[in-house]
């Protein structure tokens, strides 16, 4: 019965009331573009507040968490499930690498760069590149030590690549697994504000290994001082990225446990880095020869004892010329 009324032009009231009425309808669409600038890592509004925001995540990160949860809905036996772990663009990977090289105090790598989109591309290929960087620089440093020796026979020492690969990939997967298990266990006892998923921890560890690639290449330089400086810088950067990432996750906990966790993380990292870099120095290892006929393949630094001919590893790290007994 109100058909005629419906066909009439409806006079909206004055501008004020129409604006009062309309914002309710339009704010829903307008507020979203207004809110998106907050997602970007903007200028610090105040260090304490910003740190809490970064740690707690503002409302929008909750939304992205939910959306991320909705994204990964494929069952694990389908290919699409694994594609969600490679859902990164080139600039994102570069940003994450940059974030691992420049640890800014107070900024959390996970919240800042990973943002609920952990990828496996970075960790996998960074580990692969690191393995080959170590292998190549080990070869090269060995070659440079023996440069000019006519009897030196260059060998690429190929099989050691597989050992290096096993160690690095084991570190990149097992240590995050242990750490994740530990954090989950502590989470059940103490309510931590910040908690990371397993893939995020793998991601942080993977990207934190990036600094070792240029370090391994520069490690070819046979100067002791240069090598010490390089390893200190690399460990400092890498360790601080890890420490700053995991400190918020444990600081609610008992003080001693928190400190012990961070110290263990840094210690394991130090073990890996020292192990990798020393393996470059000792890449050729030792080899024993029993037959005197193979004398021609020996280097200068060798001498004869009762058992046969032995070769001394002139590593260039602690000695430049082997001291051979007369």
């Amino acid at each position: 019965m109100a058909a005629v009324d419906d066909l009439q032009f409806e006079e909206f009231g004055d501008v004020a009331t129409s604006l009062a009425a309309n914002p309710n309808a339009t704010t829903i669409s307008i507020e979203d573009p207004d809110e998106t600038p907050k997602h970007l890592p903007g200028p610090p509004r105040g260090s304490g507040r910003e740190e809490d925001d970064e740690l707690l995540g503002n409302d929008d990160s909750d939304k992205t968490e939910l959306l991320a949860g909705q994204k990964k809905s494929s069952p694990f036996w389908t290919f699409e499930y694994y594609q969600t772990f490679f859902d990164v663009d080139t600039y994102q990977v570069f940003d994450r690498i940059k974030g691992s090289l420049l640890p800014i105090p107070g900024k959390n790598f996970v919240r800042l760069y990973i943002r609920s989109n952990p990828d496996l591309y970075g960790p996998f290929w960074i580990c692969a590149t690191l393995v080959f960087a170590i292998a190549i620089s080990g070869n090269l440093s060995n070659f440079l030590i023996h440069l000019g020796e006519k009897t030196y026979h260059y060998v690429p020492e190929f099989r050691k690549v597989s050992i290096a690969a096993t160690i690095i990939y084991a570190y990149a997967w097992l240590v995050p697994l242990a750490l994740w298990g530990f954090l989950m266990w502590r989470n059940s006892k103490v309510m931590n504000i910040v908690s990371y998923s397993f893939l995020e921890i793998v991601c942080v560890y993977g990207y934190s290994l990036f600094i070792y690639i240029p370090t391994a290449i520069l490690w070819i330089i046979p100067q002791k001082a240069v090598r010490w400086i390089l390893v200190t810088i690399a460990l400092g950067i890498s360790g601080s990225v890890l420490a700053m990432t995991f400190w918020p996750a444990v600081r609610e906990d008992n003080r001693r446990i928190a400190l012990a966790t961070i110290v263990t993380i840094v210690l394991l990292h130090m073990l890996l880095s020292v192990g990798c870099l020393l393996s470059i120095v000792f890449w050729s290892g030792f080899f024993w020869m029993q037959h005197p006929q193979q004398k021609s393949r020996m280097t200068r630094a060798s001498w004869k004892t009762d058992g046969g001919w032995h070769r001394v590893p002139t590593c260039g790290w602690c000695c430049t010329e082997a001291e051979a007994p007369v």
Partner: protein
Amino acid sequence: MAEAAESPGDPGTASPRPLMRDLKAVGKKFMHVLYPRRSNTLLRDWDLWGPLILCVTLALMLQKGSVDNEKDGGPQFAEVFVIVWFGAVTITLNSKLLGGNISFFQSLCVLGYCILPLTVAMLICRLVLLAEAGPVNFMVRLFVVIVMFAWSVVASTAFLADSQPPNRKVLAVYPVFLFYFIISWMILTFTPE
């Protein structure tokens, strides 16, 4: 569709025609690799004969051929094989996981065929190594390997880059770069007894 690989011909007759056709297809693809331009031939008619021939050739040439080289640590035949094929499979998986729309065997085919420049480099290196060893020898080999490495990367990128979304091309190409770099390193550091 791999027309070249799948057609047994008449089961009863030993006809040479499919073999000649296969060889011609392989040869045509070699030409496409040597003069890379954007074409779909490698992708459309993929086959794995070419990569197999190249891989075997490369692995054979990387052998030193003497028995007491067990301790030398140079790559054995099986190791080269494993590296090439495992590397190619890993790159293909990576490319597909990043969202590329290339099929598994097409990608293996492209990566395998683009080893051709590096196989040529290996041949040249072996010939150069017959001459007297020295820094000049090394520089010549280094130059040849670098040129062939660049050629391989450019050739495979020309075929593979189109299959990736544009914002992920670098992510897909980097493993290819690493793969050919490793093979180039093996070729460059090859020193016979």
